[in-house]
């Protein structure tokens, strides 16, 4: 009891208590009392240890409150706005953004040598479209091991989302093509203008890849214009669909484009 008051560095309560215990021990004749005395000593030594550490004799003084304030600043606290909280009595006002701990976390990763958690097929690229479906299946079979028991749920999700991503990209490209055509129905776009991204060779390749899906599915077609350059245009919707697909020659074209040409 009264641990806090004993801990107070200014108080001599601990010393006084020890002295009193010493005196009392003189009158002890039964084992039970000796046991109590021993118990008292254990508590006393713990308190003594705490008192010693509170003197900060080993460590340079560290102001944890200031540290907390600096952390809040780093997290992006907005001190001008006051948050409506019910426990705001001793917590200083200020609005913490939702990504506060994200910010600290991002910084924190630099200080740990944490082994990245191992997941099958956890792509590290967030926005780039994934490899085609066939390759996904093959890779999935190859990486299936005994330990895959824990993984199936996650794998399924990955596969679905990758498929969707490709389809979405293809759809998006089709819509762009169609929009352009709505605005200007008689000028097909130069294929190269359509697919080339002046800033990214990788993106260019992806665009070509997606465009090839459109062509494969008969949603767009490539022709060669007077200058012998390929142009792309959307095919007219289903009314004449059958006719188109039987008339449309199934040609295979290999378009090669390397980085030098792209530049």
């Amino acid at each position: 009891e009264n641990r806090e008051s004993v801990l107070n560095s200014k108080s001599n309560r601990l010393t006084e208590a020890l002295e009193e215990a010493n005196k009392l021990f003189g009158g002890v004749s039964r084992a039970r009392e000796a046991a109590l005395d021993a118990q008292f000593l254990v508590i006393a030594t713990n308190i003594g240890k705490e008192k010693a550490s509170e003197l900060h004799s080993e460590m340079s003084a560290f102001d944890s409150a200031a540290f907390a304030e600096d952390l809040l600043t780093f997290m992006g606290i907005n001190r001008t706005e006051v948050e409506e909280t019910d426990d705001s009595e001793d917590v200083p006002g200020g609005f913490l953004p939702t990504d506060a701990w994200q910010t600290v976390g991002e910084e924190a990763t630099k200080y740990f040598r944490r082994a990245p958690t191992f997941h099958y097929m956890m792509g590290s690229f967030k926005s780039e479209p994934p490899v085609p479906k066939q390759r996904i299946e093959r890779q999935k079979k190859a990486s299936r091991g005994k330990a895959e028991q824990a993984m199936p749920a996650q794998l399924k999700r990955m596969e679905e989302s990758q498929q969707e991503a490709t389809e979405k990209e293809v759809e998006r490209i089709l819509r762009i093509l169609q929009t352009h055509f709505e605005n200007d129905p008689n000028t097909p776009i130069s294929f190269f203008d359509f697919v080339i991204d002046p800033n990214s060779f990788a993106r260019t390749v992806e665009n070509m890849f997606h465009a090839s899906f459109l062509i494969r599915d008969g949603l767009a077609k490539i022709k060669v214009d007077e200058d012998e350059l390929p142009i792309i245009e959307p095919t007219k919707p289903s009314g004449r669909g059958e006719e188109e697909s039987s008339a449309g020659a199934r040609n295979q074209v290999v378009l090669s484009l390397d980085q030098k040409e792209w530049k």
Partner: protein
Amino acid sequence: QVSELVQFLLVKDQKKIPIKRADMLKNVIREYKDASSEILNKAGRTLQEVFGMQLVEIDAKRHTYILINNLPRPEGEYLCKDKEKEKMGLLLVILSFIFMKGNSVKDSALWEFLRLLRVYPGKPHRVFGDVRKLVTEEFGRQKYLEITPIPLTDPPEFKYQWGPRAEKETSKKDVLNFVAKMQGKDPRFWASQHGEAEANL
């Protein structure tokens, strides 16, 4: 066997709970028990050479192991889920507090500090949920923190120190640098902590 063990270790490490040698023997090595230490060594080498990870025994008595990253720190963005990052942020803050306060703190002191950061043991946190559980159970089981009861305290109190995983995955010097960066001061400002951090290397 070796590759099976490597796979086993990689998957087991996902939760960051130390891996018991007994589990390795039971699930992977099984009948090859006599060659177990050789298999373990080879697995360790594979992990290092192929994945850049180190297999470290953190408890020689109970034979538990963890995987840590042995590659030089990446300059760019570290790839991991947001949830993981946020937890690491909280962990680093806690480890910093413990170190700067002399390597051991009472739970009441820790929670009082965390209150200043709007983190409360009794109140579900917007990001961390049940924070008390996260700190005492998850960080404890993962061996980032070593939580021991203080004898003869009623109600029971605990002291918090760095756990063996924290000792391996980071260092006092790194943590001191973090504190210094946050406070805009030179790490030598805290002379004794700095001395201890340098000696610790």
